[in-house]
């Protein structure tokens, strides 16, 4: 019964194990869970951007039918603590208190001010109307540059400033390059641009939901979160609940995109409600609540200057950012721009680099990670300005990149930002992408349409991106003052019947871990894909983990799996040798079994060893009777996916309407475990990047009201809004991990936004248009044309 593995699992387009439940409605979203005696929480939110709470009274709410409890921030101010920020990026960072329920002041529309707990959700929601709140209005703080000026009204009056921090990277100081002043002085060409990274809403489809059950020895928290393990630690640190008495479960989680990489107020308010009532309490947000209170993303002003020689060779990059923190700091809010800080030099050889970011508080919903987190912003700025440099030099956008990029012979390559790119082949990806698009033919068509004065002009956009992901080497995180490590955990348990349980510390919410992890384990242990069960998202089962974000699950978590499997094989080897009556050194593990060298028919599978260990009747002396193993993997480097995305856009010069005609994505994400899943990640990632380029922006009015706080007017694109994507790959394995993998979760989003905007600007270049502010709606395109023409 020795298993033979004919075809490696890694690389197969396995259909997902996850799907059977999801397509038949047998799902366990947090909101689906009902517990005996469960109560329901509703939250009253601030309707104003900035005010002192003059009076707040919940007594009338308590009189309503079915209402069990009602409380305000003042009622819990001594026990609610302050929500965590784990990334104090500088020593002198301003870190204001972040109460789950506002106590004295509200600082953005949507901030929680009071809670009602009732027998059913409708009663709780109805009782919110009975809460009386009087606000003494304070001035809203909305414009980031104005907020930094002397005498500006303060978001946090006790801080004395709206500046959160200023963080600087200087290649001369870091010893990774020369002084930017030299580049500036010697520059033959200077490209200076300002780009606005508009505020976005992650817009995961499953609204956040949390249940806290205080009725067992362990307090149990179900939450629609990306980070159950981090949530557990933070709950312990902030509430004082001993960590070993907290169990966190992330059941089915419906998307995150960074938006559920948060330890948020609602989790703590629900915890407080459960403590106060002694009952299980559930909170599920409405979409409108979510738009106002779940963290937003992006929102930066980018001033970027390229210095170059007349031949287009880059000599320096100088970046000054202002990053909107919003009203408070979330779990990694200050660090998001830093994840971009190392990527402005992108795939290019640059002698000098300086980066400075100032974080600023405003009376808006706080920002934090959103798919790509810092890297889409950086990639946008550099890829946009490289096009501007190409125009200045008078060469094709692809040519300006060729003149500056790291060639494939030059890897490993240490960049001016101090990162060592382990592998890559920008030439190959670009060659493939240009072939797929028909680049030369489209350029010829563009020439014809320009010459004929076609009303609909063709634009071709280029984005040759890279990114740092696989977060992250713990030592580097420490050097950047992040509060935790970047390792990941896996446990492998071989059951007596040869089936395998794989416990992973990463916590999926759509990525397909059950499937991809099964493929890895199957190859490592020589078991069938179907015989692996992947367990995750419950701290009682998965006791250690750093969870899922930053395209880290495969590069870090996958390597933990490999290491755990290697430990299992090391334990099984002496058992197999004993059963085969040979020396362990005489065995090799091939085709899914231990085989005696030279006598391959004499073989024992891992499953057979597991049964022998289970019985434990006949084992070599000193053998611990188990084939279970844990492994924790801490990466030595980031991974660096890259690729070339090309976009062809038709732009109607009369109406400003744009239509993506062809979109080609050639990505190099290293070795691929499951091409189906990789393609899906690229599709979805590109869609979100296109959404930033064309559709989405969270807009505040002058009073600090979010104008588009629902899906009616925050325009998440529909199927009718998006094109088909031509997706292909090159495969340059990562050399920093033995799987050769790089991660794919964020690549599409990072790559696509500049590809689309570059295409639109390219179409309108003959009209004198050199930039359009995102999102490039027909109105904005039309206005840009009108301005350029006048």
């Amino acid at each position, binding site marked *: 019964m020795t298993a033979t593995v004919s075809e490696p699992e890694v690389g197969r387009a396995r259909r997902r194990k*996850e799907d059977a439940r999801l397509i038949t409605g047998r*799902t366990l979203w947090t909101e689906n869970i009902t517990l005996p005696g469960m109560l329901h929480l509703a939250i009253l939110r601030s309707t104003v951007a900035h005010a002192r709470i003059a009076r707040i009274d919940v007594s009338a709410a308590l009189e309503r039918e079915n209402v069990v409890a009602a409380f305000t921030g003042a009622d819990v101010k001594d026990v609610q603590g302050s929500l965590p920020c784990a990334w104090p990026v500088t020593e002198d960072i301003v870190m204001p208190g972040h109460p789950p329920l506002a106590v004295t002041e509200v600082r953005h529309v949507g901030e929680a001010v009071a809670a009602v707990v009732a027998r059913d959700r409708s009663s709780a929601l109805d009782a919110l109307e009975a809460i009386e709140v009087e606000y003494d209005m304070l001035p809203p703080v909305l414009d980031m540059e104005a907020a930094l000026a002397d005498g500006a009204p303060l978001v946090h009056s006790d801080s004395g400033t709206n500046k959160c921090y200023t963080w600087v990277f200087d290649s001369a100081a870091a010893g990774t390059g020369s002084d930017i002043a030299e580049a500036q002085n010697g520059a033959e060409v200077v490209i200076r641009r300002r780009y606005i990274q508009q505020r976005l809403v992650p817009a995961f489809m499953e609204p956040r939901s949390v249940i806290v059950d205080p009725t067992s020895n362990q307090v149990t928290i179900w939450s629609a979160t990306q980070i159950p393990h981090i949530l557990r630690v933070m709950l312990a640190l902030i509430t004082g609940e001993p960590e070993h008495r907290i169990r966190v479960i992330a059941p089915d989680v419906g998307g995150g995109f960074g938006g559920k990489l948060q330890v948020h107020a609602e989790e703590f308010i629900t915890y407080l409600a459960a403590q106060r009532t002694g009952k299980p309490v559930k909170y599920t947000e409405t979409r409108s609540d979510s738009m106002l209170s779940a963290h937003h993303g992006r929102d930066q002003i980018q001033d970027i200057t390229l210095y170059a020689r007349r031949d287009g060779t880059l000599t320096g990059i100088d970046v000054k950012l202002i990053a909107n923190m919003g009203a408070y700091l979330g779990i990694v809010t200050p660090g998001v721009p830093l994840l971009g800080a190392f990527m402005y030099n992108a795939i290019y050889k640059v002698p000098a680099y300086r980066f400075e970011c100032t974080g600023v508080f405003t009376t808006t919903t706080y920002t934090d990670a959103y798919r790509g987190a810092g890297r889409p912003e950086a990639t946008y700025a550099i890829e946009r300005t490289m096009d501007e440099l190409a125009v200045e030099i008078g060469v094709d956008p692809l040519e300006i990149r060729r003149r500056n990029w790291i060639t494939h012979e030059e890897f490993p390559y240490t960049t001016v930002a101090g990162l060592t790119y382990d592998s890559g082949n920008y030439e190959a990806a670009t060659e493939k992408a240009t072939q797929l698009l028909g680049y030369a033919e489209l350029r010829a068509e563009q020439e014809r349409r320009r010459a004929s004065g076609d009303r609909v002009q063709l634009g071709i956009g280029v984005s040759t991106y890279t990114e740092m992901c696989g977060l992250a080497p713990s030592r580097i995180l420490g050097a950047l003052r992040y509060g935790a490590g970047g390792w990941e955990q896996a446990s492998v348990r071989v059951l007596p019947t040869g089936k395998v349980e794989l416990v992973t510390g990463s916590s999926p919410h759509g990525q397909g871990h059950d499937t991809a992890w099964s493929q890895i384990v199957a190859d490592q242990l020589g078991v069938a894909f179907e015989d692996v069960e992947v367990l995750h998202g419950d701290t009682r089962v998965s006791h250690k983990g750093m969870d899922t974000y930053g395209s880290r699950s495969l590069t870090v978590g996958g390597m933990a799996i490999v290491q755990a499997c290697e430990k299992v094989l090391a334990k099984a080897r002496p058992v197999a040798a004993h059963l085969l009556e040979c020396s362990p050194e005489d065995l090799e593990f091939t085709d899914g079994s231990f085989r005696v060298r030279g006598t391959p028919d004499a073989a024992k599978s891992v499953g057979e060893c597991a049964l022998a260990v289970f019985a434990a009747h006949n084992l070599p002396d000193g053998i611990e009777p188990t084939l279970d193993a844990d492994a924790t993997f801490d990466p030595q480097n980031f991974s660096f996916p890259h690729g070339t995305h090309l976009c062809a856009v038709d732009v109607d010069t009369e109406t400003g309407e744009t239509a993506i005609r062809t979109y080609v994505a050639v990505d190099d994400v290293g070795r691929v475990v499951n091409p189906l899943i990789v393609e899906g*990640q690229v599709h979805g990632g590109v*869609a979100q990047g296109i959404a930033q380029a064309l559709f989405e922006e969270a807009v505040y009015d002058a009073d600090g009201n979010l104008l588009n706080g629902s899906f*009616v007017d925050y325009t*998440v694109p529909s199927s009718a809004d998006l094109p088909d994507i031509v997706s292909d790959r090159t495969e340059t394995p990562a050399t920093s991990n033995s799987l050769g993998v790089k991660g794919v979760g964020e690549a599409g989003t990072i790559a696509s936004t500049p590809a689309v905007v570059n295409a639109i600007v390219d179409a309108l270049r003959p009209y004198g248009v050199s930039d359009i502010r995102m999102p490039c709606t027909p109105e904005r395109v039309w206005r840009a044309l009108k301005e350029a023409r006048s």
Partner: protein
Amino acid sequence: MARISLTVDGVRYADDIPPRTLLVHYLREQLGKVGTVVGCDTSNCGACTVLMTDPDGRARGVKSCSVLAVQADGRAVTTVEGLGGPDGALHPVQRAFHEQHALQCGFCTPGMIMAAVDLLSDNPDPTSEEVREGLEGNLCRCTGYQNIVRAVLAAAAAAHETAPATESSAEEVAA
């Protein structure tokens, strides 16, 4: 309270409910049909889409967050939980979603599948463009829709064949 009686996924129910109860809340909270989900509060996302018969007995896709439960009185409702055959056989659209990797997190999937079934009942042989237009009332944040379109076209193609696509069970998909 209002009295309603209706059929949901082949089972007859009769209940007294507050008149303001939305159909989706009735399905989820009274009947435990939690396979149908709520993704927004403005009827934009379509995650709650189910089929409900009209007065002529024809099943139509409706957003169950925009229908009062009392409006379902006397009607037959089909949710994603009742879409397959009684023996666990998957509906061709369900199977196509699995085969074409048309879901990632899966939260929009119940509504997306029901909307696709509705679309195909109106237009059994749609073009890719018609599928994109036909599903624009259902939002997905994960997939970029490309594989969803592919799945709907594949389901349409399968319906034109006599292939036994409908006979594979959920258990087979799990394997």
